[in-house]
């Protein structure tokens, strides 16, 4: 149900862009206004969200330790699992952000009815698909930079030639194009096939996947099929956008506008959605703090005095009993 409503929303978006640019001739709206608006919403929204998060202080140091602490000097500690210094925290965060360390731990639980026994199998597919998707997405994003720069910077050409390493087809086939679609498809199938996943998935989870898939598919269609579009015009549009002198070249083809519109939607939707995990992962207190709690005092900025039961009050209450038991007293009465 959640998946179907998400699909419907996506269908509406596609139709809107088709009608808008095909029949109503709103190329300027879709080619210039929406992209600008989307970027603006993205930037303002993203920054706003980060600032909002940053405004909430971190009252306690609640590192989750996933390995041996640093204690006695003859015990080997695990700096990336229980980091004790800033540098080690950076290492831990890099492992997390670049390689999805925590997801790599994933296991799958199974209940065998003999016994009964619970067993834990390895389960690396989620890690692999997640990693494949995110890295492909990043590479594809960087590849797109070629449209926005003239001359094309060397690192973009470098990425491109690596990505088309197999030198198949004309235009050259990008490996990441295939990987991203496969990974997204897997992530979607996983949500519907596993009853637990289906149960926890919201419409917005499916929507994000569908949106990304649709962007990928339209991109691929433009590049590898007869629906191909005029790259020169696209570059003209893109250069116009970055130089703030927007132009709308005639007849780019509506498949391009669908692609561009969906990308605009993605950007505009980003700050309001779970996609903000991109920023949030850096701010998670269980991961980005050192396990040096007993070494350095952490200060809680909103700390306030509380009512305690002081020693004096306590002794007053129990003095006679303590005296009878021969226990030391502060005051005789």
């Amino acid at each position: 149900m959640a998946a179907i409503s998400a699909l419907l929303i996506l269908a509406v978006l596609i139709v809107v862009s088709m009608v808008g640019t095909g029949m109503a001739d709103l190329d300027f709206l879709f080619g210039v206004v929406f992209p600008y608006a989307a970027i603006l919403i993205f930037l303002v929204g993203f920054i706003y969200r980060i600032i909002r998060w940053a405004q909430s202080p971190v009252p306690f140091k609640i590192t989750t330790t996933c390995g041996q602490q640093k204690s006695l000097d003859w015990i080997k500690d695990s700096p990336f699992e229980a980091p004790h210094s800033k540098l080690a925290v950076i290492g831990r965060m890099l492992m997390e952000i670049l390689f999805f360390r925590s997801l790599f731990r994933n296991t799958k639980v199974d209940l065998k009815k003999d016994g009964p026994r619970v067993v834990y199998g390895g389960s690396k597919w989620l890690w692999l698909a997640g990693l494949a998707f995110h890295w492909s997405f990043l590479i594809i994003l960087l590849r797109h930079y070629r449209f926005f720069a003239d001359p094309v910077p060397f690192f973009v050409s470098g990425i491109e030639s690596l990505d088309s390493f197999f030198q198949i087809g004309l235009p050259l086939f990008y490996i990441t194009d295939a990987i991203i679609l496969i990974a997204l498809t897997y992530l979607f199938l996983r949500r519907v096939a596993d009853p637990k996943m289906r149960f926890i998935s919201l419409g917005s989870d499916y929507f994000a996947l569908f949106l990304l898939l649709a962007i990928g598919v339209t991109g691929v269609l433009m590049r590898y099929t007869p629906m191909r579009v005029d790259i020169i015009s696209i570059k003209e549009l893109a250069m116009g956008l970055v130089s703030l002198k927007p132009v709308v070249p005639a007849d780019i083809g509506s498949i391009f506008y669908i692609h561009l519109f969906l990308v605009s939607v993605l950007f505009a939707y980003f700050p309001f959605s779970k996609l903000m995990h991109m920023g949030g992962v850096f701010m998670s207190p269980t991961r980005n703090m050192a396990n040096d709690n007993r070494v350095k005092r952490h200060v809680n900025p909103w700390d306030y005095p509380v009512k305690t039961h002081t020693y004096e009050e306590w002794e007053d209450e129990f003095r006679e009993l303590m005296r009878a038991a021969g226990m030391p007293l502060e005051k005789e009465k």
Partner: protein
Amino acid sequence: MAEKLVKPEELAGGIDYKPKQKDWFDPRVEFRRGTWNYAAPPDNLKYLDLPNPRKWSPTDEDWKLPDNWKEIILEGLRDRIKRFRSLQVFMDICVRCGACADKCHFFIGSGDPKNMPVLRAELLRSVYRKDYTLAGKLMGKMVGARELTVDVLKEWFYYFYQCTECRRCSVFCPYGIDTAEITMIARELLNLVGVSIEWICTPAANCFRTGNHLGIQPHGFADSIEFAVDELEELTGIKVDAPINKKGAEILFVAPSADYFASPHYYTLLGYLALFHEIGLDYTWSAYASEGGNFGLFHSHEMMKRLNAKIYAEAKRLGVKWILGGECGHMWRVIHQYMDTLNGPADFLEEPVSPITGTRFENARSTKMVHITEFTSDLIRHGKIKLDKSRNDHWHATFHDSCNPSRAMGLLEEPRYVIKNCMNKFTEMPENTIREQTFCCGSGSGLGTDENLEMRLRGGFPRANACKYVHDTKDVNILLCICAIDKATLPPLLEYWVPGVEVGGIHELIGNALIMKGEKRETDLRGTPLPNLAPAEENTEDKAETGEEGEGDV
């Protein structure tokens, strides 16, 4: 065991990881006996100045909430979003990847989909979205937003008291989302309208008043310690000194109160006493700070601070140099991650140095409190105590990492080092069930009550099952742990799932193995005859082995 229980095979046989309901939006829960805890009694709430004290029960239709309960909760939530970045971020960034879904022992043991950590968090998140986010206001169910209703409140009570704040989920989450943190804050919110449980508020009130959860008054505490001293004399022939409230002692020793009251904790207490005597430690117990455990942790950050304050205050009053802490799990969460922030700085104390070995505990430089297994492993490493491993030959042990020392401290090797040096037979449970991936006893965070027994047995199932594996394959007959709640709740758990496995503390085994000057021993600390009564020659061999392991194993 208060309730009549079905057979283990039946209980486990009914578990199904496939959710039966269509979706999770319906908040209504059935308060079935055995799956929830009694409500906090009004007297204790009053004693602690907590809101809305009244008599009620979770099975009542009317929970007697204040009229403006909804505003109180929503306002409380807004306030905590502003005060805790953890909450703010955790509310926003979960992608529902499901990596945490099957990591929670309550889900594994019950199959209830709302016990998947991600959904437990969604219970709060859905209300946050509705009240707080634009998307939630506009799109409702599509983005998982729900209105806060009385049924939602009841659902929170049910599921946030089916989380032991063990943090296993947080190990697997790609963003480190810690459902324990969410549970802690959800419980704070429930407390604002007087919805809390007896087994948290009563120990908290006791601790506030007398200094320990059990409500033992100072003279009773002194009696217990004295009794233990006599008992140790009977067992070893040695009369040890166990000072209480002694000013000017070098070290203040703080243990969980169960150690001097409950069994098998008690044997660990005997172990501490024997050890401290043998090394000639200049230390003192305190009757005022006679509790290391802190049920405030399970109640609210404020209550945690109120109860914890006694430890530093007492250390200051007695003029000790530093503090040593006994075997307890959640006590160490509070001491390691919270105490210095809550009640520090402890600038009246000195950086801890072992008076026996001269080792400087640099990892406790600021908080000035050292874990007993850090202390003892340092003694062993320096050869300061003589241990006869063969005295523990009647035991084949495995080690249960308690949630908090493993996932909030990273205390993994110290206890293992101590164990391997005081006994011969030790086998680890399967690797996905130990160290940072350890499974909770199922009864932590105030849930260890009789009325909640079915849920405890379910939650403890993964732990017990791993233990059963080493029991069946290697004849393991004792599960060692360094946590007072474990020692209280694992025995009934194992009796149900793995009969034939006992529970013990590490310092109990140290107490057994410790060769004391002038001792006369025929039994171990439990009064069981020692497996080897003529250890003279074997001793030398054992010592050699001890040395070897000391070098190699860590």
